[in-house]
């Protein structure tokens, strides 16, 4: 690949109180072929804000229901911050009721993915936000045994 064709690597922050769900999301990102620079993980909104204090993050994938600081409080804190307000946020949540999701979209959350999800759904949503991944063969992801 020529130098000018090299795609940027993205730093991703995954926020979920379930360690197994964080591991799964990370795995989906790997098999989807996105050029990921660094992965950061937080168990709640507070931990996510602590990570952001010291690290550059390009996209945040966050759950809604978490102990200590939930996704709603996290999004509100992000949108108040001069730098962090521009970081794209995608909710990965069990909630898909329009009345629950709409306030977040109004707050500036880019998109949401409902659990349960198929790996392909995450890939499609993130492709829209980050651009095409290195792996463009969707069947590779659909048939992936993970």
């Amino acid at each position, binding site marked *: 690949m020529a130098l000018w064709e090299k795609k940027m690597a993205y730093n991703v922050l995954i926020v979920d109180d*379930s360690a*197994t769900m964080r591991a799964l999301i990370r795995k989906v990102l790997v098999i989807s072929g996105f050029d990921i620079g660094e992965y950061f993980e937080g168990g709640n909104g507070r931990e996510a804000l602590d990570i952001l204090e010291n690290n550059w993050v390009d996209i945040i994938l966050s759950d809604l229901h978490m102990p200590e600081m939930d996704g709603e409080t996290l999004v509100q804190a992000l949108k108040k911050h001069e730098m962090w307000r521009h970081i794209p946020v995608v909710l990965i949540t069990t909630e898909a*009721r329009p009345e629950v999701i709409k306030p977040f979209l109004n707050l500036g959350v880019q998109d949401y993915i409902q659990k*349960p999800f198929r790996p392909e759904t995450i890939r499609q949503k993130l492709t829209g936000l980050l651009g095409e991944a290195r792996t463009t063969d969707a069947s590779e992801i659909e048939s992936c045994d993970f």
Partner: protein
Amino acid sequence: MLAKLKAATFEVLETMFFLFPESLEEGEILRSQGPFLRSSVTIAGPQSIRIGLQVPQSLARKMAANFLGVDEAEIYQPEMEDILKETTNMLAGSFLSKMEAPAALKLQTPIVQWLSAEEQKKNKPEKGLRFDVDEEMLELFVEKG
């Protein structure tokens, strides 16, 4: 309500765990060795309810292994507990979507506990569904919250 819960159960198990449950007839039981895991989540609102599920440890291990795409030998207690809570959460979330429930009904944080075979026998749910999942029994229950 139970039909929507059943649909949510199929959706979650098939999508996230590659497991294909079959409904058991009323009174039909599959015997499993204990211990068991019981997880539940409260849907808080004007009339709170609690949705939960109960599985033998062997099925919890299989679910966690399928979820993470690893060998069952790599699954320990924290993963099994985590996966049960996450499954219950997804079931309740899917159920609320299918019910088109108002936003006033809020999902709380799920909890999980271990039950011995004796405790499992005493914890017979009043209202629920039973499924055969790879020849092991998954019990889904609904209680007043």
